[in-house]
């Protein structure tokens, strides 16, 4: 055992040893190793999304939702390579960038290799794109979804990304979104909301009098493993966003905040749901973990662990309130994509202006630490402007898709299930475990 550990350590550090000539090379190797490892973990979150969404939908649509999740990786990676990176990080104006299409002419500047940076950003795009599949699940045409997936990855996400991370107007204002509560999660969440509203609810979700029915997901074990995979990947998502391995205190703080916020999220959502509905509900509790994670994503680097617990707890309650709000508004979001990513993406971003601390790296203290309303105002402006842009852009995107290939499957196809009607395939062939109710 000891020897195996010895050899594996050697291979892990090989790039460092080879470059051991001067310390800047060691630093650069460590930075690269860190960012790539984090990118691999974020990539693995696709498995998490797939399992969560398959678990929360019905047997007859499991192949379809897995197919959509799979093709998000395909569309996001290529779309971001061809168009997205140029729009997000190319030289341009404060709205969008204009050069670096197909990564042509893009070179490393002696710091982190540009391919490592690109990969880390590309897996983020995939994350934002795949959030939407849950909100539009069980009724959106597969063809329409492919078009959507390409358009959000190649155009919509890169534009809002440019505003905050590519030197755009929000970056100039001092808007702080460390790992993407707004850029990734609010973008995905609000796109899901627009999609869910334009598609309309699934057959049977609402009664004639407008009261909501629950449509149970088919596998709670898949849901649970999916959430834990996402939680695991989130350590890479947040801690990797440092984009360097120079400040151990920072990386450690981000990691502990990531754990604590999600832990607070499951506690809050479980107890609040238990109090409200009489029983501890596994699906709502697990939604609370994701809500806590989304909530801490913007501020994980600049808040204390105690603040992370407060942010995560509030997110855990918010997610249940948002689920009920959607039911009241007759919007059908099968997996809670908007409550988790949209609502709490906004909350997490605003929380930076409340709980953020100058001593931990924020430009000015949040209001709880005596910094006044300055940062809070910028946070509110940034997240609402992003949400508004996403809503308008996605309305146009979905409208175009609706007019060309159509957004929604027919009633008969929906009742039959998208696995059979779109893919002619069963998710559990040989098991007689399906109903259409």
């Amino acid at each position, binding site marked *: 055992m000891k020897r195996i550990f010895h050899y594996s350590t050697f291979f892990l550090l090989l790039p460092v040893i080879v470059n051991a000539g001067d310390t800047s090379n060691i630093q650069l190797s460590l930075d690269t190793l860190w960012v790539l490892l984090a990118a691999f973990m974020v990539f693995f979150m696709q498995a998490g999304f797939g399992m969560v969404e398959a678990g929360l939908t019905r047997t007859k649509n499991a192949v379809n939702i897995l197919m959509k999740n799979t093709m998000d990786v395909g569309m996001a990676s290529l779309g971001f390579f061809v168009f997205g990176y140029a729009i997000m990080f190319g030289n341009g104006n404060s709205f969008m960038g204009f050069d670096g299409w197909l990564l042509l002419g893009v070179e490393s500047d002696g710091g982190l290799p540009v391919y490592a940076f690109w990969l880390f950003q590309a897996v983020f795009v995939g994350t934002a794109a795949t959030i939407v599949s849950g909100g539009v699940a069980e009724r959106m045409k597969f063809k329409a979804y492919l078009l959507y997936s390409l358009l959000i990855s190649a155009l919509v996400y890169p534009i809002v990304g440019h505003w905050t991370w590519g030197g755009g107007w929000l970056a100039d204002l001092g808007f702080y979104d460390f790992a993407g509560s707004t850029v990734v999660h609010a973008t995905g969440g609000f796109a899901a909301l627009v999609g869910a509203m334009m598609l309309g609810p699934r*057959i*049977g979700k609402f009664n004639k009098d407008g009261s909501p029915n629950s449509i149970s997901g088919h596998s709670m074990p898949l849901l649970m493993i999916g959430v834990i995979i996402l939680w695991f990947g989130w350590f890479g998502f947040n801690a990797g966003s440092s984009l360097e391995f120079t400040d151990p205190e920072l990386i450690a703080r981000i990691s502990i905040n990531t754990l604590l916020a999600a832990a607070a999220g499951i506690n809050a959502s479980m107890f609040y749901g238990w109090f409200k509905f009489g029983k501890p509900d596994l699906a709502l509790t697990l939604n609370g973990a994701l809500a806590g994670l989304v909530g801490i994503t913007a501020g994980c680097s600049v808040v204390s662990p105690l603040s992370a617990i407060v942010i995560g707890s509030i997110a855990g309650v918010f997610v249940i309130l948002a689920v009920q709000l959607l039911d009241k508004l007759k919007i059908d979001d099968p997996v809670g994509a908007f409550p988790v990513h949209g609502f709490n993406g906004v909350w997490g971003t605003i929380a930076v202006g409340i709980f953020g601390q100058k001593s931990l790296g924020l430009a000015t203290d949040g209001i709880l630490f005596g910094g006044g309303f300055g940062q809070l105002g910028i946070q509110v402006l940034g997240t609402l402007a992003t949400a508004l842009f996403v809503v308008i852009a996605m309305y146009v995107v979905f409208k175009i898709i609706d007019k060309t290939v159509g957004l929604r499957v027919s009633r*008969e196809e929906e*009742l*039959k*299930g998208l696995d059979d009607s779109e893919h*002619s*395939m069963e998710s559990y062939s040989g098991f*007689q*475990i*399906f*109903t*259409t*109710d």
Partner: protein
Amino acid sequence: MKFIIALIRPEQLPDIKQALFDSEFRHMTASTVMGTAPKIEQKQFRGVKKEISLFNRIRLEIAVEDSKVEAVLSCISQGAKESGGYGKVFVLDLVDVMTVWTDDRGEDAL
């Protein structure tokens, strides 16, 4: 008393159940079964052909008084036609019924 067995497609269940509920027929049993169809269907898995001769079906069982048979049949027919118009219904004579909870027999037990 009659025992009605309807064999329908899974996607027809919501409409048929709704039609029965709307006419106050609230007692039924549904099970998932497999049955043949007039045609053998060609499907593919990983690009390779596969013949399907048994399809997923729902078997709906309803026990009613003689006077209500026509009403139940028309509910089933109406619901089935809203969702494709498929299905086969069998009507059998029912000899006796017992409700365990009350020990009621015959029509009282329906």
